[in-house]
C-alpha cells in the first residue's frame, strides 16, 4: 500500500509537468495552428542556459530568469518561420518545420554545449532542499513546487483567458479566426502573445525539470516533445482541459507501470491507453472537432 501511494505521488508530480507541457503545446495549436515539435528542445536548451548562467554568476535567481527568458525568446524566434504555413492552415507542415528546428537545437546541444556531454545541477537545488519521508513515501519541496506551479500556471492561464481583454482576444482567435478578424482583433499580436505565453510556460517547465530531474542531456528534448504529443492526443488536440487530464493520466500510467510491470513497456502501454481513449472518444478525452479548449 505504501508503495502504491508512493507511485501515485510520483505520478501526480510528473503528471503536473506533463500537463504543463501539454497546455503549452495545445495553446500554440489552438491559437496559432502550430504543432510545435521543438517544444521539448526549447525546454532542454533553457535548462542548459540556466546551467551556464549559474556557472557564470553563481546566482540561482539570475540562472532561473535566464532559463525563462531563453525559452520565451526561442519560442518567439520560431514564430516567423511558421507564419506562412499557419496562414495557409498547413498544420502538418508546421510539424515538419518544427521537427527541423528541433533537429538544429538538439545538434547545438549535442555538438557545441558542454562538449555534448550531459549536465547536472547542484544537489542542494534538486529536490528543493526539504523533504518528508514516511516509509517508502517521500514528498520533497520540489514536488510541492511542481504541483503548485503547474496548478498556479493553469489557473493563471484560465484567469487570463477568461478575464483579460487579451485573453478573450486569444479565445476569439481560437474559436473563429475570421470572426476575430472582422471584429478588429489584431491577429498578429494575438499570435505573438500566444507564442510568448507558450514560451513562458516552457521556461517554467525547464525550471521544474531542474528541480525534479536535476540533469539534462541533448536527447532529453525529444522525450519531452514526445510526452507533450502523447498528452495532446490523449486529452484532445487543442484542449487545455484535456492537456491537464491527459498529463495526469500519462504520469500515473507511467509510474504505475514502472512500479508494477516491466519498465521497457512504459511507452507501449501509455500509447496503448492513448489508442483506447481515441477509439472510444475520437477527439480525445476533452477534444472537440474544432480542437479548442
Amino acid at each position, binding site marked *: 500500500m505504501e508503495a502504491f501511494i508512493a507511485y501515485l505521488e510520483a505520478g501526480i508530480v510528473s503528471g503536473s509537468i506533463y500537463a504543463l507541457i501539454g497546455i503549452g503545446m495545445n495553446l500554440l495549436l489552438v491559437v496559432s495552428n502550430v504543432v510545435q515539435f521543438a517544444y521539448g528542445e526549447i525546454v532542454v536548451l533553457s535548462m542548459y542556459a540556466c546551467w551556464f548562467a549559474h556557472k557564470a554568476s553563481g546566482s540561482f535567481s539570475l540562472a532561473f530568469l535566464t532559463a525563462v527568458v531563453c525559452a520565451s525568446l526561442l519560442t518567439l524566434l520560431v514564430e516567423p*518561420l511558421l507564419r506562412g504555413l499557419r496562414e495557409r492552415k498547413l498544420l*502538418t507542415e508546421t510539424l515538419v518545420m518544427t521537427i*527541423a*528546428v528541433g533537429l538544429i537545437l538538439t*545538434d547545438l546541444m549535442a555538438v557545441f554545449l558542454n562538449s555534448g556531454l550531459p549536465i547536472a545541477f547542484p544537489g542542494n537545488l534538486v529536490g528543493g532542499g526539504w523533504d518528508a519521508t514516511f516509509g517508502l513515501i517521500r514528498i520533497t519541496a520540489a514536488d510541492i513546487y511542481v504541483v503548485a506551479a503547474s496548478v498556479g500556471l493553469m489557473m493563471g492561464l484560465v484567469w487570463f483567458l477568461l478575464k483579460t481583454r487579451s485573453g478573450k482576444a486569444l479565445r476569439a482567435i481560437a474559436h473563429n479566426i475570421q470572426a476575430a478578424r472582422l471584429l478588429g482583433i489584431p491577429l498578429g499580436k494575438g499570435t505573438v502573445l500566444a507564442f510568448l505565453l507558450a514560451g513562458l510556460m516552457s521556461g517554467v517547465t525547464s525550471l521544474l525539470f531542474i528541480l525534479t530531474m536535476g540533469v539534462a542531456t541533448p536527447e532529453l528534448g525529444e522525450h519531452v516533445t514526445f510526452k507533450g504529443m502523447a498528452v495532446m492526443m490523449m486529452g484532445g488536440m487543442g484542449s487545455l482541459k484535456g492537456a491537464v487530464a491527459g498529463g495526469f493520466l500519462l504520469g500515473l500510467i507511467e509510474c504505475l507501470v514502472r512500479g508494477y510491470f516491466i519498465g521497457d513497456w512504459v511507452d507501449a502501454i501509455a500509447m496503448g491507453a492513448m489508442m483506447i481513449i481515441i477509439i472510444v472518444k475520437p477527439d480525445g478525452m476533452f477534444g472537440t472537432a474544432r480542437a479548442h479548449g
Partner: protein
Amino acid sequence: MLSLYAENLLLTVGVFIILAWACYLPLLGGQLFNGPIYCAALAGYFAAYTTKTLGWPVPLGFFGGIAFAGLVSYGLAFFLAPLTMFQMSVVTIALIFIFQTTFRNLEFLGGVTGMSGIPSLDHLLPITLLAVLVFLVLLSRLYKSRWGRALEAVEVDREVSAAMGVDVNKMSQVLQTVSGAMGGLAGVIYAFNLGTIHPDVFGFGQLLYCFTIVFVGGRFTPYGPLLMAPVLWLIPEFFPSAIAEFRNIFFGAIIIVSLLTMPKGVITKRVVARVENRLKGLAGRRA
C-alpha cells in the same frame, strides 16, 4: 558493375522512396496512416526469421514478408477504416510503439539485439528499381484517374463523398492494405540489403523522416517523395567530413528554407502540370 557503396546508396534511396510513397498514398484519401513503418518492421522480421532461422528459400521469405505485412494491414484495416484522420494517426503511432517494444522483448526474434546474418537476395537492386518504376507509373496514373479524384473528394469531405456513393470505408481498407504492403516491401529490401534488422530501426524517428520527405517534397503528387528521398538522404552523405559537426544543422536549415519558400512542397500539381505542358509542347514541335 556498381560498387558496393553505390549499390547500397541506390537501395537505401529506393527503400525511402517506397516508404515515403507508402505514407503518401493514404494521404491522397485524407488519411494520416502511419502503418507503413510498423509494416516495414513486421515484414523485415518475418523475412529475417523465415530465411535465417527456419531456412526458407530467400525469395519466399522476401515475398512472404510483403504478404505478411499486407495481411496484417488488411486485418487491422477493418478496425481502422472507419476512424477519422486524427484517430487513425494516433492509433497507428501507438501501434508503432507497441510493435517496437514487442520485437525488443521477443527472444526468438533476437530481442534487444535484433537479428543479423540474414541471407542476401540475388538481384535485390534490379528488383528494387523495378518496384520503384512500377509504383511510379501506377501512382502517377492514380492521382489523375477517376480513383484519384475520388480519393481527393474523400480528402476534402468524407461525408459528402460517402453521400455521393463513394464507399469510403472500402477505399480506406484498400489504401491501408496497399500502403502496408508497400511498407513491407521497404522493410524486406532493408533487411536483405543490410543483413540485419533491429527494433530501433523502424520507429517514431523513421516516421518523422518519412513525413519530412513527403511534406518537403510535396504531398500532392508522387514526384515530390521521388525527388526528396534521394536529396534528403544524399545531402548528409556527401557533406564534407571536415565540417561534419554542422551536418544536421545544415540539414535542418534546408528543410526550413524549403518550407518557407515552397510551403506546399517542392513539387506541386502546378509544377507537374507546367512540366507536362512543356513536354507536350516540345513533343508537338517535333511532330
